[in-house]
């Protein structure tokens, strides 16, 4: 154990770092283009709701360079790329449900000519009135999925019996993923109507399955492959399917390879985003701010179809407690259908929206009782031996939030700074400061239990070099680096000996999306399993060949050690080959212990929790609403880190992405339902200057996973995003008004100040 931890602490940069910095890392658009390649473009709806009265694509077909045009009529199989439920047509047939809904596609000799041709389409619409607001959808009972209710204890009584109650409304905003590499797919026809698809996706297996269904072919005729993608954040978990499907449809029809790379603006218009939420709450609490009961309605903008909205809203429900024990609770969850693009997975997957709600409620309780919010938070934390059952009946067994919170309060000098801020605010009328500390407790595992499985394929070649594949996608999170470290550690080799190539449905089948922060746990587990199988083969060989009777065989420093013998790894491998020992194996992993009831949502949906806490200090300008983040202090639990520098990168990056969601990033539609923030000139993600000058980020040193994950590490992809809630709460603290809406743009801040 100690040895393992030592090895993992060695600084190891991202496996592709030197390729990233020199432009040598290949993304889908950089792959050497095949002969006769055609380029595709997508024509989409210019209205939010209505019917297609007439469609004339003759001029499109005649346009310079155009080889073919396709509509829904050219789909041999199903016209749907919906992942769990149906409802996401590739091309609209007659009904238009959102502005930007694809209607047709062209293939032309160049990308520019394909895009030019689109503009020649003549489509007449019969416009209908779209539903654009969540509240409007609730009023009209417009839902994509059944309403879910989860209860624990007696809410009405607990609120009635409480000394204090408050009620109110809250709003959290949407968010565009803004992965730097836009959506892209390249399909290459192979023999027997088989297709090879390079897709920038987080989910190759489902891409394979969906394209097969669209083409009405067997899964085994479609091969999806990708080495790395330029960011995903959930935006390529299902939203990539339509592009893969259209490129495959055109490849099938023309017989040519097809590249479909869409323009950034079109990407933002066509693809789903983070769900914005509306909340209505009533909370009862003691004079110390201890929550007795919470009665909550939460409603999200799902857009036109279910997509992953079911699981996302479930996760919002699972995280409404954040780190707090709420003895009595009733949650009603509306999954609203609006005439906007179908919203989808986004880092945190509903978790951030759940926590946003409870953290605001805590701030409001703090203001009501005039007790510092950090004290209210502490008073409500889950405890170790009591108050440790969640509203979905899972026992919190690995709680370390009390310790992290206490450590961070001390490390960040919170109390002293809070005093100073109170003084500052007394002296200043125009500028006001605020500070807040918020916790994070995030459940790890797909809440859809069957997705918690991973696969791997490991080969050792006769020179001792190792080649491996697994089901995960490298999207910047450092998965390949961690997996290579895990494999190297198991075999006692340096990572230079481990080669990981493109994730490929021909290598590892039936995989789950790289999502839910679980890719290292799941795929790392599968790699260990595969290596152990090969090691078992080698053990049999060692026993026979060296007459070794013991059990202990160690792999260390390029050597294999047993008894008093030490053999070069390479030599052992070459000998094993000559003795006809199998040096290749697949591997498999399934997450233990988890289960849940789909109706009541009760059970143990998560294997474990990742914890963290953050302090944000802000300053606002009460004349303009402009604001600035002055200092951030973070303490985050990653268990025993496999790669601290990669984990720190995830924490910092996750925080800043959450910061964008809660401050500058605003998704807006006009009254007709047209998205008006569809480019980086109107949609503003954080830049260099937006991060605080004092940005202290630390890994929780005592971190340890009580569950048996690889190296006892913990998932780190999503949890840090929610640390940014501290910034919103600090802003709310500075504004000193409960009605601050997210995102806290200068406008929303100024408007809250006006009230």
């Amino acid at each position: 154990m100690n040895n393992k931890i030592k090895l993992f602490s060695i600084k190891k940069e991202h496996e592709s770092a030197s390729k990233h910095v020199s432009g040598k890392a290949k993304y889908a658009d950089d792959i050497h283009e095949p002969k006769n390649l055609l380029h595709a473009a997508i024509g989409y709806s210019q209205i939010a709701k209505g019917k297609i009265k007439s469609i004339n694509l003759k001029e499109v077909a005649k346009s310079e360079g155009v080889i073919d045009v396709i509509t829904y009529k050219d789909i041999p199989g199903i016209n749907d790329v919906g992942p769990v439920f149906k409802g996401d047509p590739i091309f609209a047939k007659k009904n238009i449900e959102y502005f930007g809904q694809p209607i047709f596609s062209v293939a032309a000799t160049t990308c520019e000519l394909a895009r030019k041709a689109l503009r020649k389409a003549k489509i007449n619409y019969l416009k209908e009135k779209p539903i654009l607001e969540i509240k409007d959808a609730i009023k009209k009972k417009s839902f994509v999925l059944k309403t879910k209710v989860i209860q624990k204890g007696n809410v009405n009584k607990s609120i009635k019996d409480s000394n204090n109650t408050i009620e109110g409304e809250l709003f959290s905003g949407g968010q565009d993923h803004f992965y730097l590499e836009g959506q892209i797919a390249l399909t290459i026809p192979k023999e027997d109507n088989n297709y090879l698809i390079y897709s920038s996706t987080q989910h190759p297996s489902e891409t394979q399955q969906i394209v097969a269904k669209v083409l009405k072919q067997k899964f085994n005729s479609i091969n999806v492959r990708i080495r790395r993608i330029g960011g995903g954040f959930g935006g390529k978990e299902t939203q990539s399917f339509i592009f893969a499907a259209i490129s495959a449809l055109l490849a099938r029809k023309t017989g040519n390879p097809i590249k479909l790379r869409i323009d950034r603006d079109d990407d933002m218009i066509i693809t789903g985003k983070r769900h914005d939420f509306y909340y209505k709450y009533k909370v009862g609490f003691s004079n110390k701010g201890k929550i007795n009961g919470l009665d909550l309605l939460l409603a999200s903008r799902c857009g036109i179809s279910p997509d992953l909205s079911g699981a996302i809203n479930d996760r919002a429900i699972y995280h409404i407690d954040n780190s707090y024990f709420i003895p009595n609770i009733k949650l009603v969850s509306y999954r609203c259908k609006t005439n906007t693009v179908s919203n989808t997975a986004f880092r945190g997957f509903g978790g951030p929206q759940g926590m946003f709600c409870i953290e605001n409620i805590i701030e409001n309780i703090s203001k009501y009782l005039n007790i510092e919010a950090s004290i209210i938070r502490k008073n409500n934390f889950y405890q170790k031996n009591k108050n440790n059952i969640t509203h979905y009946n899972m026992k919190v067994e690995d709680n370390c939030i009390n310790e992290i919170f206490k450590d961070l309060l001390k490390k960040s000098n919170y109390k002293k700074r809070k005093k100073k801020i109170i003084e500052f605010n007394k002296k200043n009328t125009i500028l006001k400061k605020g500070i807040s500390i918020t916790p994070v407790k995030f459940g790890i595992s797909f809440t859809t239990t069957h997705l918690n499985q991973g696969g791997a394929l490991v080969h050792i070649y006769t020179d001792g070099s190792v080649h491996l594949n697994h089901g995960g996608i490298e999207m910047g999170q450092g998965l390949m680096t961690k997996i290579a470290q895990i494999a190297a550690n198991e075999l006692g080799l340096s990572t230079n000996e481990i080669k990981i190539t493109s994730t490929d449905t021909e290598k590892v089948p039936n995989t789950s999306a790289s999502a839910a922060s679980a890719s290292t746990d799941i795929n790392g587990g599968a790699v260990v399993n595969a290596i152990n199988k090969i090691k078992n083969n080698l053990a049999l060989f060692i026993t026979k060949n060296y007459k070794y009777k013991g059990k202990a065989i160690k792999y260390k420093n390029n050597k294999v050690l047993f008894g008093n013998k030490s053999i070069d790894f390479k030599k052992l491998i070459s000998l094993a080959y000559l003795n006809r020992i199998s040096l290749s194996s697949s591997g498999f992993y399934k997450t233990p212990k988890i289960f849940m009831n789909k109706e009541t949502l009760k059970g143990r949906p998560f294997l474990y929790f990742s914890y963290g806490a953050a302090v944000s200090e802000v300053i606002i300008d009460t004349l303009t609403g402009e604001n600035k983040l002055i200092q951030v202090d973070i303490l985050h639990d990653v268990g025993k880190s496999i790669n601290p520098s990669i984990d720190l990168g995830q924490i910092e990056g996750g925080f800043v992405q959450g910061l964008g969601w809660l401050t500058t990033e605003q998704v807006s539609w006009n009254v007709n339902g047209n998205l008006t923030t569809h480019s980086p000139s109107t949609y503003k993600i954080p830049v260099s200057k937006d991060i605080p000058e004092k940005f202290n980020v630390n890994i929780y040193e005592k971190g340890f996973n009580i569950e048996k994950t690889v190296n006892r590490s913990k998932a780190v992809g999503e949890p840090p995003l929610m640390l940014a809630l501290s910034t919103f709460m600090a802003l709310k603290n500075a504004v000193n008004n409960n009605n601050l809406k997210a995102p806290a743009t200068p406008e929303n801040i100024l408007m809250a100040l006006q009230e």
Partner: protein
Amino acid sequence: MIKNEIEFILNDNLIKIKDIDTNVTVLNYLRSNKKLTGTKEGCASGDCGACTAVTAELNNNKLTYKSINTCITFLYNLHGKQLITVENIGKDKLHPVQQSMIDNDGSQCGFCTPGFVMAMFGMYKNKIKPTNNNIDEYLAGNLCRCTGYKSIKNAARKMYSYGRNDKFTKNKKITIKLLKSINKNDVIIDNNKKKFYIPSNLNNLIKETQKLSKFKFLSGGTDLTLEVTKQNKEINSLIYLGNNKDLNYINIKNNYLHVGAATPINDLIPKLKNIYPSFADMFYRYGSIQIRNVATIGGNLASASPIGDCSPALLALNSSLLIQGKIQREVHINKFFKSYRKTTLKNKEFIKEIKIPIFKNCIFKCYKISKRFDDDISSVFVAFLLNLKKNLIIDMNIAFGGMAATPKLASKTQKFLIGKKFNYNNIHISKKIIENDFNPLSDMRASSQYRNIVSQNLLERFYLEVKNNRSETIN
């Protein structure tokens, strides 16, 4: 002798081009024609920086390095320059910038990384020791969605510890010699029914302009190229002003700052710093360095955007424009903007110069409000010019951007204030009057309500800052 081809150095090699379509961007040329795929497309609108490369130009026998957005630069703009791409800087040995990025974990998904590396390379070649502000300034045009920037900023801070001289310093003489070998005569490209003219001086420019019938002027191209990349239009004839030395100058004469219309905004900032520091500070936020390196003040005015920050500032300063057609005429900027995106420029006329008065005894301040501090279009912009004598307002200009279809003076407010005491009471009354001056729109940047409140509050801010002689802002 008029040439029919352009010449530039791509990394180490001299390239001559005449057959490629004149609407092709540098990015598409690199990726499609040269298969140099290290430079990435993130947005094709100059907002994300993934496509950043660096140009080197020869000025007074010295090389000046500038980062540019290749996605919104036409290929033919490269005439006479060196273009350096990410593949080249570390060809034999990783460049200090690259090694620092690796060692500081500056890349995650890696897609934005080449752009960051090149933006940092631009900084490396221009600054000796970057401050935190310098780093933010040089990186403001590059978006990263993975790292949270901390590691990238560390890499930028530490890059000089990997060596202060790179191969470009070593090869300086060869590069200068190559650049000098490029013929500086006029260029006329005529292919695929499209034309691209590069006049080398003012006389030739006027001559060509009169000859042609339908064309567009192009300088930095940061707005015009979007017609190609975003609207899929074709621009048939272009006259490029960027290489015209007669339009690129800054002089101070007779209490006026004379700025050649094709002067890149970045070249103007140092001069403005001494005269109107608040104007200079605004320019840092006006666009990323990649934009400011090529975007010109003339281009900004001619495109007549209602939200360009430069125009209201110039409006407050009573600037005028020298407009060149067959003859030259001078127009006060207040008469220049006619309506949304319309100016008094007639066919075949272009802006030759901007004349900015230097008011030595006036107070000039401007304020920019946007969702994001850096590289964002204003929801409200205001510039004040105040002539104050013994606390009496002798004269005052208040010019707003973002409040109407064109940049516009708050005339009613001005009228009320001129001749009055500069005190809180009068400012308080004038806050109400401002509401009658404008009827702003609601859009994705801000609501009309917000624009109204902020415009009033900025008047108060200006008053407080002048009165207390200190600025009370969050930055």
